[in-house]
């Protein structure tokens, strides 16, 4: 097996550990794996941003915007370092679908650790792409991540129109109309899934729509904190 990223042959160290666990299916080599930085240590409890504060300034700002923040919290698995930026760019923009499998194991592991409290009927909802973008890319990266999780996935959201988020200013992004539509109502707890948490606006648009339609609690689990 070759490393999905650098194509180096992956050496499987024979140790008692992997003899017992039989985890012979590494997709990245040790060197590449070590460049993926799992977020640990001091992070904002609401959004996973690296900070010494319990709740970061961004999240305090969000708290002031409405009576109740529609999002309970966001949990991000990795720091968005240079290596993750390259990996995600190749996966998402170049469209190297299979590369996404390299995230599976750490993403699921981190999810299990963080969401131990979650009820059994919780549902993963991926942030949708516009139809145009989905046709271009041929896959939705958020859907791929959601499908990794050990809970049921329901793609109940869709995008109303395909305006590019990144082209707008922060103000525009935050105060524009909700870009999402909901196709089905559910009253289960929901974990929204996306590849990246940047300002948190996208996830909050999705969360408030879900709550308006009867969801009790909405969390977010994302691959990286941008």
């Amino acid at each position, binding site marked *: 097996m070759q490393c999905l990223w650098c194509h180096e042959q992956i050496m499987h160290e024979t140790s008692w550990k992997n003899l017992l666990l039989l985890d012979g299916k590494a997709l990245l080599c040790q060197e590449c794996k070590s460049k993926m930085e799992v977020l640990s240590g001091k992070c904002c409890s609401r959004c996973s941003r690296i900070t010494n504060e319990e709740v970061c300034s961004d999240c305090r700002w969000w708290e002031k915007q409405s009576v109740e923040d529609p999002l309970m919290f966001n949990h991000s698995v990795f720091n968005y370092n240079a290596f993750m930026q390259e990996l995600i760019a190749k996966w998402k923009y170049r469209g*190297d*679908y299979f590369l996404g499998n390299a995230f599976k194991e750490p993403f699921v592991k981190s999810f299990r650790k963080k969401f131990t409290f979650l009820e059994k009927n919780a549902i993963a909802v991926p942030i949708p792409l516009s139809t145009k973008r989905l046709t271009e890319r041929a896959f939705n990266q958020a859907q791929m991540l959601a499908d990794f999780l050990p809970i049921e996935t329901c793609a109940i959201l869709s995008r109303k129109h395909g305006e590019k988020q990144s082209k707008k200013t922060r103000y525009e992004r935050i105060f524009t109309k909700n870009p999402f539509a909901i196709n089905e109502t559910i009253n289960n707890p929901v974990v929204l899934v996306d590849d990246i948490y940047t300002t948190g606006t996208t996830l909050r648009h999705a969360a408030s729509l879900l709550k308006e339609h009867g969801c009790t609690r909405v969390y977010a689990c994302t691959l990286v904190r941008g």
Partner: protein
Amino acid sequence: MQPKKAPPDFTNQQLAKRFSGKLLLRNEIPLNEALFQKLCSANLFTPSKSIKRKKLSNQCQRCNNQKQSLFAAIPCQSCKKTHLYCRNCIEMGRVMECEALYLWSGEAPIWPSLEDPCSWIGKLTNVQQQAANRIVNAIRNKEKELLIWAVCGAGKTEMLYPGISEALMQGKRICIATPRADVVRELLPRIKSAFSSTEVAALYGGSPDKDATAQIIISTTHQLLRYKEAFDVLIIDEIDAFPYHADQSLPFAANRSKASSNTTIYLTATPRSEHQKQIRQKKLPHIFVPVRFHGKPLPVPLFKMCFDLRKELKSYKPPTAFLKWLDHRKNPKRRLLVFVPTIKLADKMKDNLTQILIDKQILSSNDSLCAVHATDPDRKEKVELFREKKIEVLLTTTILERGVTFPSVDVAVLDAGHIVFDEAALVQISGRAGRSPDDPTGEVLFFHDGKTDAMVEAKNSIISMNKRGGFS
């Protein structure tokens, strides 16, 4: 929204110049859907399967990848089927089984035939002129292949000018392919000014000229993956270099890009053994250019034993023997090009070396030493700074072993016995010294803790090239 302008009407000849000789995905053809469909139904574009499924292995029709580990399945939301895509050439845009590759099948492009295309006013040396004449003959007589074995610093680009002129006079299309984008960028202004009335375009990953319609194309070898039966004259620079040997798809692409009647010129300073063998067996016509354009011999490397090399490198310190040599350089005004075997060493030794060189008053400040390596985003700028003499010392991995020319440098290789320094690399590295007519010599030192065959062979090959050049 601005109202969109009506598409301009292209003549078939304009389209032929833009698209003939290319093998493209739909999203690489910047024409609106209506026009594209019209051209398809007129059979001016012919679609073909992008991935061929075979019994035992599949085959990407763009890059010829047949390694199963470099194909993956994608549950495609565009065609709603799960099918293959090619991971090997994905940096050039994803090839998916459900999308076709398009080839221009309309009329052939007619390139201008110029009477006197060359605007270069320099003069070739006698040795260069002989090689140039040989290239002209090869093109005139439609010979298939010719290898130019020219030592580092022979002035091979200028030697090509008469051949390129000959091809332009005959209305041929020419491509100069080279492994590195750095070299493409360096060649572009030179070729443009040498052939000022001909259109010249540069192609490399991220280059602005993607949709090039030029008669002369300067391209990284990778970009040739988008061409098919395009070039009447193909000049392949650094035929011995990485990545031709590492990536099977590159020789495949180079070969496919040749027009049916084609002359291919190979350039090398350090031919690989298979080419040397073909030369000896007289299967590959060649011409040898053993003298640098300034007429001085190649600098011969000196070996310096370093007993504590492992220990020193482990703590990212420059070898003691190297520091000693610094105190006794023949011409301390020359700038320093220091090669190390790994990126890690380049990064980690940088601060130590800077401090030592400041203490020795070789460097005036912290920022007159830079470290570069392949994944360095500022590599282009740093190389430029060194070339413009704005920095004194450049610490580098093998990425600067070839193609780039700096005036008046001394060259040191730290840990020259490392496996990355093969014979060809060491010959190329030695060839970085003594490039300037004002300072045609330069010191080359290999610091090692046990000489390798590669080091010895590199030195012998330099000595033998000097002999063939009439120096003893």
